[in-house]
């Protein structure tokens, strides 16, 4: 056999370049859209609202991260007890998730703020207490409502993820005498998070877009600022496009960082 095929030199599995033709095309397209927007639309209002916008963005980011982190910390036990907990606890967790997922966030926020919040106001003991200055503000209610909501949705996702970890891997942990907590921390949780990451990304992005609801209880996030701009200037598209751009950038950062996390544990291709 003479035609001994010379095998091509090995090329390291490079990260895909940013400059493949179709990517360049996409980027150019994007730049054109951006430029024509900048050119043909009215942006003169931005300087006037600049500081408020920055504050709004900050408020949004703080709301997003604090509630997503707090919500996730709650979601883990919520998911776990549904898979392995004693029956009454499991039912309780399931009921909680159903109740929260089953009713609109706006309603929950409204009940917390205008319902519970005004109940507090009726008790002079509370009005006199050191807590009142906080209870009088809006953000604790916004924070609580968003946290609870994230916990319920993510709790449901974590339930599936916990149930999906191969039984054998948990058995191995048990067989070597891992305590329940160690097993949970070292094996069950990381494995569950690993397989739930793509969904978790989505839930976090949904959470980002739930934050505007806090505007109904007078927390001024970026969405509220943009609404104000729209109502002040009566511009239809420009403020919304700016808002879209801000949210897109935030989403982009979220998606990118979650994707990095995903990549840390390689997955054999499907």
């Amino acid at each position, binding site marked *: 056999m003479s035609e001994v095929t010379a095998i091509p030199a090995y090329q390291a599995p490079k990260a895909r370049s940013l400059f493949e033709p179709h990517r360049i095309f996409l980027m150019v397209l994007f730049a054109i859209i951006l430029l024509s927007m900048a050119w043909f639309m009215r942006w003169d209002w931005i300087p006037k609202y600049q500081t408020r916008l920055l504050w709004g963005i900050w408020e949004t980011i703080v709301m997003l991260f604090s509630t997503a982190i707090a919500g996730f910390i709650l979601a883990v036990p919520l998911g776990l007890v549904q898979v392995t907990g004693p029956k009454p606890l499991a039912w309780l967790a399931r009921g909680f998730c159903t109740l929260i997922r*089953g009713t609109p966030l706006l*309603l929950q926020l409204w009940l917390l703020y205008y319902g519970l919040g005004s109940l507090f106001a009726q008790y002079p003991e509370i009005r006199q207490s050191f807590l009142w200055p906080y209870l009088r503000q809006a953000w604790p209610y916004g924070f609580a409502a968003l946290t609870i909501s994230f916990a319920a949705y993510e709790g449901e996702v974590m339930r599936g993820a*916990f149930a*999906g970890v*191969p039984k054998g891997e948990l058995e191995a942990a048990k067989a070597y005498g891992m305590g329940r907590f160690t097993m949970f921390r070292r094996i*069950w949780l990381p494995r569950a998070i690993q397989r739930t*990451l793509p969904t978790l990304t*989505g839930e976090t992005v949904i959470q980002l877009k739930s934050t505007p609801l806090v505007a109904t209880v007078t927390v001024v996030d970026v969405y509220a600022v943009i609404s104000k701009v729209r109502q002040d200037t009566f511009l239809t598209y420009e403020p919304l496009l700016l808002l879209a751009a801000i949210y897109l950038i935030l989403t982009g950062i979220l*998606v990118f960082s979650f994707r990095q996390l995903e990549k840390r544990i390689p997955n054999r291709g*499907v």
Partner: protein
Amino acid sequence: MSLLSLSSPGWGGVLLMGLLMSLQVAIGGYLLGLLIGIGGAAGKLWGGPILRDLLEVYTTVVRGVPELVLILILYYAGTDAVNQLMQLLGLPAVDISGLTAGIFVIGVVQGAYSTEVLRGAILAVPPGQLEAARAYGMSPLLSLRRITFPAMLPYAIPGLSNLWLIATKDTALLAVVGFAELTLVTRQAAGTTKAFLTFFLAAGALYLMVTLVSNLIIGIIEKRARRGFARPEGAA
């Protein structure tokens, strides 16, 4: 309570109509989203580099841009564009209804999320099971239908059921185009009668009912889907 009675002085009938409208949009949008999601996940996992990049742009942009912005752009700018096109072609202007626009927007948004949910679920299926399907000559479509889909269901169901519940509530966005779905009619009823608590609780109860019924159905599906999966039981 008389405020909630079904016929005219009471608002019960209006609320139920609103619920019906919400469900219509939600079901339409969810199904459309699921279709897009299946295609999107398949494309992201097995598509060529160009398709993958395009899908990445789609999921990032659509998930990133608030639904409200999407619906306004589609409803106003989109109708404008369609009508200008029709004018150019010498055709009469069309009126895109709130329902169509709603289903379309919610479908497109849900599609982006379901793409990711399904992708995650497919990645969670042990690769060997898909290899076995390929090894025996199943076509991609067949193995998707017979193996991948049922095998990933247990991992996908929680995420998908979340999406469904979100869809039922996302219909509230259509209020901006005056579409009389549950949230809007609730606000109208409450604002008119000033009986806020009554109507918000009533709406909450309606949503909760939808959820409970959905849970029942999802539960049945999940039970079927989990057949054959050994549950990790207590941490004894």
